[in-house]
């Protein structure tokens, strides 16, 4: 890894992301690690809309967008074409999609791409709801979060389902490399990007990206929330090699986990939760870690 100052920026400034969007930090750093010999497929979503508005583009690498649910199949198509035409050597093929395009509508295409063993690094930028369409719930939305389709009310505590464990499901495809990462831990993120790209075959990266607009927190708090998600144990940084999900390697373990309330109370999407509700979330996090440390 070279020093940041010497590296070429491949995600140009002047894109239209919301102030404080963590996706921008993630994509910029991922592309720095991947370098210019990279071709990316991107799904419809925040990233595509803010970075490719014709006649401009924020991408200094070749990029193709085709639709919402197929970033994995599009990346697969690029990969096989490059292989067939003898242009694959030294070129990374990546896919970028949001949580909606990965957890929900793009899941079938993703599963197919992983199963077929394409040499593609798939990055899911997870902000825990359909943010581009106006903050609707997704299978990535955590229990209790208020979204425009899981509003709290007299009969609702917000989102009623727990978050789908997508990265583990991907790892369970017996792929060579799967990992989780977030923007407060850039070294960890870049290290995982490097491993994913250097691995022959499919790799999956789940990147947790706070969203000031959808989570309703200050635009200067995105990195702090990314850190708090990890320090409280809500989001776990891990990697799994060769699909060995029974032996997840936790790559950063908080010395002493902070109470989840510190993470939740900075976001208005959880503002309606009672102390009891917060306790429920705390208990679920504690149980998750007990299993991890088992």
């Amino acid at each position, binding site marked *: 890894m070279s020093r940041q100052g010497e590296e070429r920026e491949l995600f140009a400034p002047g894109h239209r992301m919301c102030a404080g969007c963590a996706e921008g930090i993630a994509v910029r750093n991922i592309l720095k690690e991947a370098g210019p010999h990279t071709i990316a497929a991107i799904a419809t979503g925040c990233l595509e809309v803010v970075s490719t508005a014709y006649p401009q583009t924020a991408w200094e690498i070749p990029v193709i*967008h085709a639709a919402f649910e197929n970033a994995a199949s*599009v990346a697969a198509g690029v990969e096989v074409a490059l292989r067939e035409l003898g242009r694959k050597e030294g070129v990374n093929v990546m896919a970028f999609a949001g949580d909606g395009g990965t957890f929900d509508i793009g899941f079938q295409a993703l599963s197919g791409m992983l199963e077929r063993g394409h040499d593609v690094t798939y990055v899911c930028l997870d902000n825990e709801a359909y943010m581009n369409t106006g903050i609707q719930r997704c299978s990535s939305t955590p229990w209790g979060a208020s979204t425009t389709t899981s509003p709290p009310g007299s009969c609702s505590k917000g989102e009623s389902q727990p978050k789908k464990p997508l990265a583990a499901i991907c790892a369970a495809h017996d792929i060579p490399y799967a990992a989780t990462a977030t923007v407060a831990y850039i070294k960890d993120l870049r290290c995982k990007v490097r491993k994913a790209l250097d691995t022959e075959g499919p790799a999956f990266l789940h990147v947790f990206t706070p969203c000031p607009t959808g989570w309703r927190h200050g635009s200067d708090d995105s990195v702090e929330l990314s850190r708090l998600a990890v320090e409280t144990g809500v989001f776990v940084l891990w990697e799994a090699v060769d699909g060995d999900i029974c032996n997840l390697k936790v790559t950063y373990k908080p010395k002493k986990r902070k109470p989840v309330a510190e993470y939740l109370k900075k976001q208005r999407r959880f503002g309606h939760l009672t102390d009891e509700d917060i306790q429920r979330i705390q208990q679920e996090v504690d149980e998750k870690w007990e299993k991890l440390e088992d």
Partner: protein
Amino acid sequence: MVVTGDYSAAYGALICDVDVVAAYPITPQTFIVEDFSEFVADGLTDAEFVKVESEHSAMSACIAAQAAGARTFTATASQGLALMHEMLFVAAALHLPIVMPVVNRTLAAPIGIWCEYNDTMPERDTGWLQVYCETNQEVLDMVIQSYKIGEHRDVMLPVMPSMDAFILSHTVEPVHAPSTDEVADFLPRYQPQAILDTSNPMTIGSFAPPEYIQEIRYQSEVTMQKAREVIQQVNDDFAQTFGRDYHGLIEEYRTDDADVVLITMGTVTGTAREVVDDMRREGKKVGLVKLRFFRPFPLQELRRVAENVEAMGVYDRAMSFGSGGPAFIETRHALYGLDIPVVNFLAGLGGRDVVKEDVRLMFEKTLKAAKEGRAENETVWIGTRGVKP
């Protein structure tokens, strides 16, 4: 060789030296993917064959591979085509000359596997060229021509050659097969104009505001219009090289001195040729137009034929509910202002056989309309239980 329509399509991909195939099996297209799998297994091609998990991914992977500079091929039918619907627009608007044979099969419900055009007709507005084939030879020849037409610099659009389920797809016929070398002379290597290449990065498939989209739509129409000329050129080149002439957008049969003409598509055309001969022997001056290309639609060609006849019949194997058969609707559009009766015949839906008696009835109804100067009924359902034609 004596082969099925499906084999003809797969063999067409083989001799056109495609780089990437991405496909998903669906009856009655299955032989195409099976036959191509055997070509790969036997080392007859070094193409990459991606066995995707859905038709949506098949078209997505073809779009991406074509955008990366490869010549691509896929094939589908019915439900599979419907699942691709969204991506068909993308392939056309990005000007990616993918070739995709479609085996025309009824679209559920009720679920069935036999011939109907209600799968391809709803795709007529996606920006793909559409051509309907009559024989297995035509299927093979149109796969070759589709690459040449689609990849032409003035066109750069995807092409969908269609064949009737089972009547062609699963029926063997003698087919003359050109060699890979002969095809290579006729069809040069694909020369893409803009590709995904790290030495020249570009963004393909942008988000665009209203300030730009209308021009992009206009460009699609310009290229579709230019395709008319290119289709004829390629047809003529092909005829000169391989000795088989399909006459371009339409083919006329005994129309020269005809009083009435029937327009048919696909395999019903073969039956109709015999009926024309029978009726000619009886002294009835009937003729036939085989509607080959549905996109671009042969507006001027049909009008020219109509100018010399007293009535026209149009056979449809699909219905646009609440309006009429798609071929009928478009023919009427082509004939606007001409004062002749035009009769629409619906038959063979869901794969029901269309036999000589059915076609004879179409001619008789059209002759009656010519004599009376008007059609008794504009839409005639033939062979429908409980419905008098």
